[in-house]
């Protein structure tokens, strides 16, 4: 048996299999489980490796949804939102507790509800309105990270609540570790818990990690593969989700300090499984029709099933992601996009679009939305070097 490592990345649309000398990509057969599909397409390769030499990460349908309830915008909600986003969580909504009765109840099942508010010497931050709201809400997990004086009332009224240390200390500063670890583990469990992914433990002895986690670990070493000029934004546009990773220098607001790079996962923005929600988002963007004209197509392209339609969708995805992180859309984070020196693109998009086609969209975005001639460099990670580096790096960390 070889001592070489076999690295596997399971996405929602493709899986990639990499050894020291080769990398191959396969479109997933959705009539088969991932393990069956993998064995069918790469069985011979798998046989050449021991279980301890196979390392797997997955981003298939990754990302958890959360609803955050806090008592102020400047502290509890801001801190919890920062921690959640940096743990690969998608924020469905934030609720300012004093106005909780005015909020509508989300119809989707929420993966985790986060409740926070008050320093430890302040009590009665919450009242019955909170418990009435939660009774009407569908959720899988609920975690309390507020004042410890409120814990008895919270435990008495909310079934199965997980209580963690307060995220606000007595100087009103953020304390991120406990909630961050909890959410990261929940995200990890969610990926591992998917039946398809569980099966993969038949072929590996190593823990299966989430792909954004692995990629984020690579970023400090990206210079070893590409000449990327800092600060940069990395876009990983896949079939179901889009992950962005960015240098901390590009934000003023972020208060989570541990890592040099932050990451966000947009759960319903992808070109295959999340195609319909991408089209929906596109139709709601006032600049998209102008962009379609710029690309010399009409909106009928959304109905087409062709290589050209896929290209257009990918170009739209780039544009929509840039809008989401710019001042044009008030969202969790607005990056200082005029300071960006490089855009690095990885994921399936690099197999479909050329550097020129990507640059075309980026320059359209800068002109239309930012009214600027700024022209950052575009770097295509078309051989999945970033993921490979991360997967290898992860394994050396273990």
């Amino acid at each position, binding site marked *: 048996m070889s001592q070489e490592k076999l690295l596997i990345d399971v996405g929602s649309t493709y899986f990639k299999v990499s050894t020291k000398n080769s990398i191959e990509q396969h479109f997933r057969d959705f009539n088969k489980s991932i393990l069956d599909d993998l064995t069918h397409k790469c069985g011979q390769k798998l046989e050449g490796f021991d279980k301890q030499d196979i390392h797997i990460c997955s981003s298939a349908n990754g990302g958890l949804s959360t609803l955050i309830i806090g*008592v*102020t*915008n*400047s*502290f*509890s909600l801001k801190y919890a939102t920062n921690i959640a986003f940096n743990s690969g969580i998608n924020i469905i909504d934030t609720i300012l507790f*004093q106005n909780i009765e005015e909020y509508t109840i989300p119809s989707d099942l929420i993966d985790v509800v986060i409740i926070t*508010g*008050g*320093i430890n*010497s*302040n*009590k009665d931050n919450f009242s019955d309105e909170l418990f009435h709201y939660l009774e009407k809400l569908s959720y899988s997990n609920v975690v309390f990270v507020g004042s410890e004086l409120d814990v008895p009332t919270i435990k008495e009224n909310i079934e199965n609540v997980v209580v963690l240390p307060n995220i*606000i200390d007595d*100087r*009103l500063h953020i304390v991120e570790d406990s909630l961050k670890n909890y959410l990261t583990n929940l995200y990890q469990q969610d990926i591992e818990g998917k039946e398809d992914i569980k099966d993969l433990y038949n072929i590996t002895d190593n823990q299966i990690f989430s792909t954004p986690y692995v990629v984020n670990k690579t970023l400090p070493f990206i210079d070893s593969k590409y000449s990327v000029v800092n600060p940069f934004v990395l876009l990983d546009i896949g079939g179901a989700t889009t992950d962005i990773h960015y240098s901390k220098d590009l934000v003023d607001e972020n208060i989570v300090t541990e890592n040099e790079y932050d990451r966000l996962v947009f759960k319903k923005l992808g070109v295959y499984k999340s195609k319909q929600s991408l089209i929906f988002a596109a139709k709601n963007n006032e600049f998209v029709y102008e962009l379609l004209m710029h690309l010399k197509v009409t909106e009928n392209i959304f109905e087409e099933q062709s290589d050209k339609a896929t290209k257009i969708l990918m170009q739209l995805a780039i544009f929509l992601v840039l809008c989401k992180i710019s001042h044009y859309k008030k969202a969790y984070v607005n990056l200082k996009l005029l300071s960006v020196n490089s855009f690095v693109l990885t994921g399936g998009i690099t197999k479909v679009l050329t550097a020129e086609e990507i640059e075309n969209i980026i320059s359209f975005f800068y002109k239309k939305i930012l009214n600027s001639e700024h022209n950052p460099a575009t770097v295509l990670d078309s051989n999945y070097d970033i993921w490979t580096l991360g997967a290898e790096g992860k394994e050396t960390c273990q």
Partner: protein
Amino acid sequence: MKVVTGVVGNDIHVVANRLIDLSLQARGFEVFNLGVNTYLEEFFDAVIETGADVLLISSLNGEAEGWGREVPLLKAKYKKLDDVIMMIGGNLVVGTGNAEDIVPRYEGYGFDIVCHQVDLNTGLDSLEAMIKERHLEVRNN
């Protein structure tokens, strides 16, 4: 007793801010100092998070004049600030002005104690006097 304090707006007078912090501590208050360059919403939010009894805003470059006007509108959005003692002090106008004009203006914005160019200790004496007065009122009721 808890006090939230800080310097409002784009004002970096950190020494005065530190002196207020130390003076409050010397008088036995538990101080939450938001420092300089603080926005109005952060002051109110800090009061909510800490359960503070007093909000003491300072202003040295006169920026309070602009921010003060925003107080009634913003405060009305909060449901738990009615019992908080609101105090403001420092140099409360851009240029010159006299206390007879300035104090009523700030009282109109909702401040209980207004100290325009008043010595720090004198200002804090009036704060303590108001606290005593309110306690007496509570006891008598």
